[in-house]
């Protein structure tokens, strides 16, 4: 094969290859840049917040409130969060409903709290204002299971 290409044309080819490769590299970097590093979010009138410190006691009270409310408004979900193996006779929804009906859940006051951590889980063992014992096993805030012991 003979090539009828002048020196000038070789230079144009080389230049074009460099330009095209450069453009494709830039395109690749641009469209695959999913998570741009952001170092600052500029404040405006609407996008600020005030940080509120939540104590362990406060969080315990939130769990108690949340679960007692769930029993009232959606006992199916409350049963899903209940550790079935904790009380062996409460393995059905009906048995659970009967059991919680007999509990006095009117108080969400945390009378006593024992908090500890084991591995990834945090445990909030609570005695409420009516002396019910409830333990929340938590793996991530608001991701909990419940045990009446």
């Amino acid at each position: 094969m003979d090539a009828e290409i002048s020196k000038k044309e070789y230079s144009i080819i080389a230049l074009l290859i460099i330009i095209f490769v450069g453009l494709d590299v830039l395109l690749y970097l641009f469209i695959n840049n999913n998570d741009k590093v952001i170092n600052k979010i500029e404040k405006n009138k609407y996008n600020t917040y005030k940080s509120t410190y939540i104590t362990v006691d406060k969080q315990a009270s939130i769990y108690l409130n949340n679960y007692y409310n769930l029993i009232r408004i959606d006992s199916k979900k409350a049963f899903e969060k209940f550790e079935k193996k904790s009380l062996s006779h409460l393995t059905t929804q009906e048995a659970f409903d009967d059991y919680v009906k007999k509990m006095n859940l009117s108080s969400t006051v945390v009378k006593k709290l024992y908090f500890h951590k084991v591995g990834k889980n945090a445990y909030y063992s609570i005695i409420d204002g009516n002396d019910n014992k409830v333990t929340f096993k938590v793996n991530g805030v608001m991701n909990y299971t419940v045990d009446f012991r």
Partner: protein
Amino acid sequence: MKIYFRDILLVIILVFIGATIYIIVNKNDKKDLSNIKVVDNSTQYYNVVSVVNKYVHYSNEDDKSKIFKILDDDYIYKKGIDASNVFKYVRKYSDGNVSFKGDIMYYEKISDNINKYYVSGQIESVSMNDYEIIDENFYTIVLVDNKNSSFSIIPDDGKTFKEVEKWMLK
């Protein structure tokens, strides 16, 4: 057989077009999820809940400019959003007493001061005599600047959150 300049030029242009199409078609949408963790700090969690409540209240007020000002700049740019079309991307909750109730939340550190939160929960309407869940499956992404106490929002239809959750439950 002789090779001419125009033949080489044609081949180069075809290769360039082919490579460009390949890059666009094989766009990498996959996120690196390995740095994502579950939020286990209550203060961090409720700061994000308060931010999401602000976002929900602004949408409830039907105020386009407020919503526009809390959306993430990059999201605005990519979607071509302006103050007039913002509600095409943000759901409006037209009820006087809406609030957000959070479920499990995940986060990743984007830079020294910025965390990105993957949020799920429900939008509920609470009044003296009534309680109603308006949206059982609400999702959003929140960027929080801890140093500046500022935030921005990336609306999510649940696709990103579910992808993150699937990875976390592996």
